[in-house]
């Protein structure tokens, strides 16, 4: 039997507005508990919400970037349930008339394929506070700093068929929101959170299987892992004659498992109804078009421009543009060095490897774009070889300064002086008469391979600084003269 996994994602994104969605309190992360919660956030009796225009603007930006319909009339509703970190006893959210309607985006998969994922809708809502269960001697603490932070919940159609597709989609959303600057997208801080609806069915079946909602997946890596684990669990269950029950499950990264949560609350009746404290919000075309005019260049457009302007492959351009900060970095390097292809290679290969290995984010990248451009210029003008360049780059990552300084200081300048190289070649040949004889006696077609020995010896003598091209030329000339 061949199984197919069906995935839909619900992504919560905290909007980086100055103040909360319904109050004037600050939304900054990391303040002391309950210092950023005003009377409205605490749901003091008699307080009323006032919608934050900036949150609407951000949501409209997102909708436009997703090629989605914009809800010209959107309505907040109350979702009723009791929980200590939900001060009003209801969450103010949108249901029937959300701010962003259906849309579709193209997602790039590894291997250059693309995939369309449909957006069901995205709505504005308020975040809850946090319950803290440690450090209170068996009691719970409540921090309401986060209560009322604006969120957009982005709900996809169940269009993804593998964990890889789901991650690619999630990354695309991450890329869009950070390009737009409407969220910092930091999954580790909870600025972007993801729930995955996962079901399985036999390949070819039209009917969807029973789905489980997996919560608490707070990194790209875990999204992939959680989906794969859950799909496997469901397949095993069905193959063993069992049935999947619709439920909410928690992903436990340490134990590499998903397990049921809140079974009591699954049957919750949220009793949605329009919030009488907030009037429907009506947006006119002028407002929407004005926002459209402020949109930055988005990942897809930037990718296409990189292909046209810098002659990059579509895949390379897509990789470079998936994060705005990387795209901007590349573009600075390309412009400053005048060598777009080399720039692309260095950013995607050497720099990426370094960041990955050192677990450094692009934001904290120790090599400035101008520095990398300087390095590329020295490769291009023959001052250093590609191999030496890697050495210089490594020094740069340690903060040793720009390329010229490092090259100078460490004496890494490539030797292109013909006289000096001739001297080295003569020495090597003189000291390795046996190899020279072998070479001369060998067949013509075996000779290039044997040449490697002499090149290696010369490079060793020159500490890698001899210009390889010059070495080759002189070596061939000298050998033929022997």
């Amino acid at each position, binding site marked *: 039997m061949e199984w197919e996994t069906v995935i839909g994602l619900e992504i919560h994104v905290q909007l980086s507005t100055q103040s909360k969605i319904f109050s004037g309190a600050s939304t900054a992360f990391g303040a002391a508990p309950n210092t950023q919660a005003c009377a409205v956030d605490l749901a003091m009796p008699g307080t009323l919400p*006032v919608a934050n225009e900036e949150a609407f603007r951000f949501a409209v930006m997102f909708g436009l970037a997703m090629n989605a319909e914009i809800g010209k009339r959107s309505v907040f509703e109350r979702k009723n349930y009791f929980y200590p970190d939900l001060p009003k006893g209801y969450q103010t959210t949108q249901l029937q008339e959300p701010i962003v309607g259906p849309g579709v985006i193209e997602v790039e998969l590894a291997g250059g394929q693309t995939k369309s994922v449909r957006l069901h809708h995205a709505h504005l809502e308020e975040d809850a506070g946090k319950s803290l269960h440690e450090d209170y001697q068996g009691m719970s603490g409540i921090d309401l700093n986060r209560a009322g932070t604006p969120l957009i919940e982005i709900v996809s159609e169940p269009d993804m068929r593998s964990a890889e597709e789901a991650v690619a989609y999630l990354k695309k959303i991450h890329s869009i929101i950070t390009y737009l600057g409407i969220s910092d997208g930091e999954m580790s801080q909870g600025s972007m959170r993801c729930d995955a609806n996962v079901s399985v069915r036999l390949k070819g079946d039209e009917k969807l299987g029973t789905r489980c909602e997996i919560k608490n997946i707070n990194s790209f890596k875990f999204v992939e892992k959680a989906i794969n684990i859950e799909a496997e669990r469901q397949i095993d269950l069905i193959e063993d004659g069992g049935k999947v029950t619709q439920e909410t499950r928690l992903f436990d990264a340490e134990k590499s498992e998903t397990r049921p949560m809140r079974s009591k609350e699954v049957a919750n009746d949220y009793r949605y*109804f329009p919030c009488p404290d907030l009037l429907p919000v009506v947006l006119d075309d002028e407002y929407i078009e004005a926002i459209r005019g402020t949109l930055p260049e988005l990942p897809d457009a930037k990718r296409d421009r990189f292909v046209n302007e810098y002659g990059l492959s579509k895949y390379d351009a897509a990789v470079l543009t998936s994060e705005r900060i990387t795209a901007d970095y590349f573009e600075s390097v390309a412009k400053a060095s005048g060598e777009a292809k080399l720039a692309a290679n260095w950013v995607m290969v050497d720099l990426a490897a370094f960041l990955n290995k050192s677990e450094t984010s692009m934001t904290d990248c120790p090599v400035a774009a101008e520095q990398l451009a300087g390095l590329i210029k020295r490769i291009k003008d023959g001052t250093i070889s590609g191999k030496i360049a890697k050495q210089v780059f490594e020094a740069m990552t340690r903060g040793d300064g720009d390329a010229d300084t490092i090259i100078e200081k460490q004496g890494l300048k490539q030797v292109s002086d013909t006289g000096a190289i001739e001297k080295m070649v003569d020495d090597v040949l003189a000291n390795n008469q046996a190899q020279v004889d072998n070479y001369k006696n060998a067949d013509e077609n075996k000779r290039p391979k044997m040449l490697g020995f002499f090149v290696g010896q010369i490079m060793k003598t020159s500490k890698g600084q001899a210009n390889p091209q010059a070495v080759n030329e002189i070596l061939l000339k000298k050998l033929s003269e022997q």
Partner: protein
Amino acid sequence: MHTKTIAELISGLRNKDFSSSELTQHFLDRIAAKDERYNSYISVTRDIALAQAQAADERLATGDAPPLCGVPIAHKDIFCTQGVRTSCGSKMLDNFIAPYDATIVDNYQRAGAVMLGKTNMDEFAMGSSNETSYYGPVKNPWNINCVPGGSSGGSAAAVAALLAPGATASDTGGSIRQPAALCGLTGIKPTYGRVSRYGMIAFASSLDQAGVLTRSAEDAAIMLNVMASFDDKDSTCVDQPLEDYTAGLTDDLTGLTVGVPDEYFGEGLNPKTAEVVQAAIKTYESLGATIKPISLPHTHLAVPAYYVIAPAECSANLSRFDGVRYGHRCEDPKDLADMYKRSRGEGFGDEVKRRILVGTYALSAGYYDAYYNKAQQVRRLIKQDFVDAFADVDVILGPTSPNPTFEFGSKGDDPVAMYLEDIYTIATNLAGLPGLSIPCGLVDGKPVGLQLIGNYFAEGKLLNVAHQFQQATDFHQQLPPETA
């Protein structure tokens, strides 16, 4: 001093006949001496009142003080008052000291008014007799065996018993107008959105509106001038230009068209009440008004629609009272569910629980369309009735309440009988229109209220129509026998 109207007190203060401190002390003494009988106050804010009075006297001395400066008033205990217990008539908030002032409380403070205290009310404003208060029932000064009406019964009794010259109140389905009628007062519920709801503890958000209870239309105009404002902290507040409600009080009523809905004089209306109201209609005719019979065909649906919408909204509005952050929390909760259940079980009274349950039911999956949606459709029809009517008439007139005041416990355990006491006032809230009640006579020694309903933001017109009636009659000057 206590028999004077607010208008008279204002000129007395300006003429230096008495100071605000003397006036305030006088009312505080009266409350101390007499309120045990009426139970109209939950809290008397003596120290605050005297400090505010002193400040008012200083302001008055400069000769540049706003009209209400130095006049003592009472606030319904539904309005948050910073540093003062704000109980909403409930055990749930018996320990709640509000950390901020409601916008209207702030408005009065800035106008120099003096707060005597916080008045009793039906718990969370749910009731028509003031019998649901955690602080015990309020007695009607006209007959202490009878109810003052509700939910603003404390404000009404305090003003009727001359324990405050005027009081703030709130009206979700008649909670200002019905107590005004039962206590012989003038009470106005403005257009929804005219007055800020910020800091007024919510019962049913789409229906709640603050207003005032006074002893004359002129006093109501003076008080409303201060209460009305645009407030950006309340998204449902309407940015409508403010007007001076005293400016048009004396306008002539010649040419005024008064609509009298058939439906307000049908079955259920006490015949003696009907008689008194008919006499009031004659008075208007004599003042030059044209009486025009009209129909508000969906009137009979107002009570059922209201008792779906109001409980639905209250079921969510009262969820915040969970024992977590403020208010009543049960002793030694064994877990979270236990804390919720016992805190709410102990903190809320029966009528509040009934409405939370009704509202929760009406919003439940499978019932939402049949109840909540249907009620909202009915609400639109009721509103349309009024829109159609106001195409032909300037104001609508009828009884405020089908009966005069009744004895405590006489509605027994029949909530529907109680709900029907609001049958003429509820539609106004559903439509968001302004409504006013003025005294128009007595039945068996009990006051009868005449209700006037105006078009949106026609508070000035309503007060004018009420004032002219009061110029021609003296019903509003009659005092409860034992206070006279």
